[in-house]
């Protein structure tokens, strides 16, 4: 079918001001991504895949203005964690604020410094993104591959000595950042990547993760609270046999957040968990879109998404488990739940299963509703004040998602941020 003219026009307008780097190993992959993109155009509200989230602010030529939030009421994310920090300010790498990228068990380099030489990331850059374009098109990720201005390339060859922490600072009201990271976890290696901060007024980020046999990858992210920021992020991951992938995201406020995770369990006995907790108070939209493909046998996947919404916040969940023929003994689990704290908020969900193997166990559940009045009454009858009782129940509701974080110190950090948010937003 011919591409609607509006999509082509929107694409031309969007990329008019962007350019490919002149040289470097990433150029062929970027050109291919541009060709893919031309075949797709920009996403539009009428696309089934954007049924619940209007992509127009993400595809517009320039970002809408968004002021950075001066958050004096919160300690910087992962402050107490021993980590290697790499800082981007409005999408631009800040070497002065970053640690020296030397870490035992890990090789780190930058996409912007991609030279003509042979680099391991050449076999990864744009490759997983391209695989993720079927059966559903994700034009914004192809746009990212083509025009990313920078990104971090991390290869774990053994167990990393400490987590690598990507800190995204937002300073300019009109910044428009495109970053593309590649992460390769070698056989038997282990790496934890932390991400934090709002990044820019508009942020388009892709992270490609390739986990080799027996490799372990952990990802914990907290997206900034800046009210007007907009973000579209994609994680594309490929898992070999007996590997492990665990990702957790905390999203608080932010005008629009679309987080896509596209995971392929290719080898046998691989494990993928992806979890998210989103809290929104006001005109905010949080969209988690997950696509998990089971190809290997005896793989396990878990999706746990919890949303707490009030004052018009909208929560979206689109999750799909695809079990390919032959992916026997698959264990797929998916839960999406929302707690609507008032009548103005909305929860829109499309949890899908597509299964072509018979010896599998797949289930999904989705619920939506208000705080349990009985539980609230119980707490109050025990002398807990109303607001505290509510906060307690909200935390209990979110707990299942936080449990997906293996590291206790990191889980505590996330928990305290969540409590902070609840304290700030406990009024009507």
């Amino acid at each position, binding site marked *: 079918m011919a591409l609607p003219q509006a999509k082509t026009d929107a694409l031309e307008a969007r990329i008019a001001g962007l350019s490919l780097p002149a040289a470097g190993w990433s150029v062929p992959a970027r050109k291919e991504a541009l060709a893919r993109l031309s075949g797709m155009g920009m996403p539009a509200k009428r696309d*089934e895949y954007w049924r619940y989230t209007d992509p127009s602010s993400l595809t517009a030529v320039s970002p809408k203005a968004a002021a950075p939030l001066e958050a004096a009421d919160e300690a910087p994310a992962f402050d107490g964690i021993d980590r290697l920090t790499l800082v981007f300010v409005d999408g631009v790498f800040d070497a002065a604020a970053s640690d020296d990228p030397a870490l035992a068990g890990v090789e780190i380099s930058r996409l912007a410094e991609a030279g003509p030489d042979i680099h391991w990331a050449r076999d990864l850059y744009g490759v997983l993104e391209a695989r993720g374009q079927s059966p559903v098109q994700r034009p914004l990720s192809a746009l990212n591959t083509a025009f990313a201005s920078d990104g971090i390339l991390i290869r774990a060859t053994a167990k990393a000595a400490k987590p690598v922490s990507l800190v995204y600072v937002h300073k300019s009201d009109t910044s428009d950042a495109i970053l593309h990271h590649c992460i390769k976890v070698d056989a038997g290696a282990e790496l934890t990547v932390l991400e934090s901060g709002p990044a820019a007024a508009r942020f388009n980020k892709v992270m490609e993760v390739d986990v080799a046999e027996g490799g372990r990858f952990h990802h914990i992210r907290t997206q900034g609270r800046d009210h007007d920021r907009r973000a579209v992020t994609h994680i594309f991951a490929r898992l070999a046999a007996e590997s492990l992938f665990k990702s957790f995201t905390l999203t608080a406020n932010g005008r629009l957040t679309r987080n896509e995770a596209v995971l392929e369990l290719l080898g046998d006995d691989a494990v993928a968990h992806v979890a998210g907790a989103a809290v929104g108070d006001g005109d905010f939209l949080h969209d988690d879109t997950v696509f998990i493909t089971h190809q290997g046998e005896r793989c396990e996947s878990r999706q746990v998404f919890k949303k707490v919404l009030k004052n018009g916040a909208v929560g979206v969940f689109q999750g799909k488990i695809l079990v390919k*023929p*032959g992916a*026997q003994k698959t264990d797929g689990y998916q839960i999406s739940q*929302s707690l*609507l*704290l*008032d*009548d103005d*908020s*909305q*929860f*829109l*969900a*499309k*949890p*899908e*299963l*597509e*299964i*072509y*193997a*018979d*010896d*599998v*166990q*797949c*289930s*999904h*559940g*989705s*619920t*939506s*509703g*208000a705080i349990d009045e009985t539980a609230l009454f119980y707490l109050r009858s025990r002398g807990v004040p109303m607001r505290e009782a509510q906060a307690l129940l909200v935390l209990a509701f979110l707990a299942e998602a936080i449990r997906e974080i293996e590291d206790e110190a990191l889980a505590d950090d996330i928990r305290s941020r969540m409590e902070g948010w609840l304290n700030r937003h406990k009024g009507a």
Partner: protein
Amino acid sequence: MTAMPQLEIEVRDGVDRETIETVQAMAGKYKYGWETEIEMDFAPKGLNEDIVRLISAKNDEPEWMLEWRLAAYRRWLEMREPDWAMIDYPQIDYQDIYYYAKPKSMETKPKSLDEVDPKLLATYEKLGIPLKEQMLLAGVEGADEPRKVAVDAVFDSVSVGTTFQAELAKAGVIFCSISEAVREHPGLVKRYLGSVVPPSDNFFATLNSAVFSDGSFVYIPEGVRCPMELSTYFRINAENTGQFERTLIVAEKGSYVSYLEGCTAPKRDTNQLHAAVVEIVILDDAEVKYSTVQNWYPGDENGKGGIYNFVTKRADCRGDRSKVMWTQVETGSAITWKYPSCILRGDDSQGEFYSIAIANNAQQADTGTKMIHLGKRTKSRIVSKGISAGRAQNTYRGLVTMHPKAKESRNYTQCDSLLIGDKCGAHTVPYIEVKNNSSRVEHEATTSKVDDDQLFYCRSRGMDEEEAVALVVNGFCKEVLQALPMEFAMEAQALVAISLEGSVG
């Protein structure tokens, strides 16, 4: 154990060869695949305004009805066939179909059942639907008073006859073919036709609006509990003919009716199109139960032939405390595209949807429901059981939406899929839209294979494989089978057993 020659099914633990062979043998066993040899009167092939006029003229319709059809036809020309369902079929040539086929003997409408062509009566007799006003239902012969079921029998494009009309009329119930209703009760038809499924609703419903030839009309007056169950039996007989029936049920305040629908077609190598519309209007405190056993010819084991079933069914619970219950057992058709829906407009209205969809061989089913909660304290419940075997694809597609004004509403959805064999697919595509916080929505779905432990347990108690499987699958479908009226439940149970006998792996 060796691999099967025809189909490369890997034989797994717990299934013996015999089981698989039985399933393969079952593939050809469609009980209703015979044809009635009868002289037919066809309208010319193809679709254009003249055909629409001709159908209208054949039915002796008033001018307004013709205009309504023509408007739908013109609208249809501008529409595109939907492609979002998980079904795959060759392009339908809408000009290669007969839109009207009527037995010659029906040229003048028989005044009573006694005058109906014996060949037609024999057809329904053979289908197990005797068109006599003394119907004894299977399994209830011993009852003191036989339960009565009034039947409207539709053969290709026309209604052959309707039983018990006089007795129903005494209660004030109107039960007749839609063509008769257009002539005899134009006020009611004009008021309600298209009010639930508007002529422009979707591609197939619009096509139906233009060319529907017959179907049933039911009107239950205020406060009347329909004295017997009503049913329509649809039979496609003629080759290359589409069936486009239209059913309209109106339940006035405080009334009740249970309506049953059955359908079959002969075995043919070519596909046939069936595009029906069912509209139900339910006013205050009224209740309608609508049960379907859909057993159109599913095609052979290689996917040759079979009915393309594109159906729009919708109930509008307009009144407060009104209630609708859809129950469907979908075992037939090569393609099923069907989403019986409930618009819960009245406060405290309720909608229920119980479905068993079985797809075997090359069948493809994309079916489910929509629960649209608009009124306060509305309730809905969805129980869907999908079973896939052979190379079939079975999709549950559903929508639950809670409007901001639908305070304190409730939905519970459960959809379970069972896969039998590793060449088939089972899919779940639910849409959940919650726009207020006093409502609760719960959705659960599971996909699994028949539990080896359960099978083993049954077998260790001396059951053979067949019996054990039947027991487990019936257990899987139990909640839906229980929702059916008794006589349908028995038919459905037998159908489930026939479609799946021994096919568990």
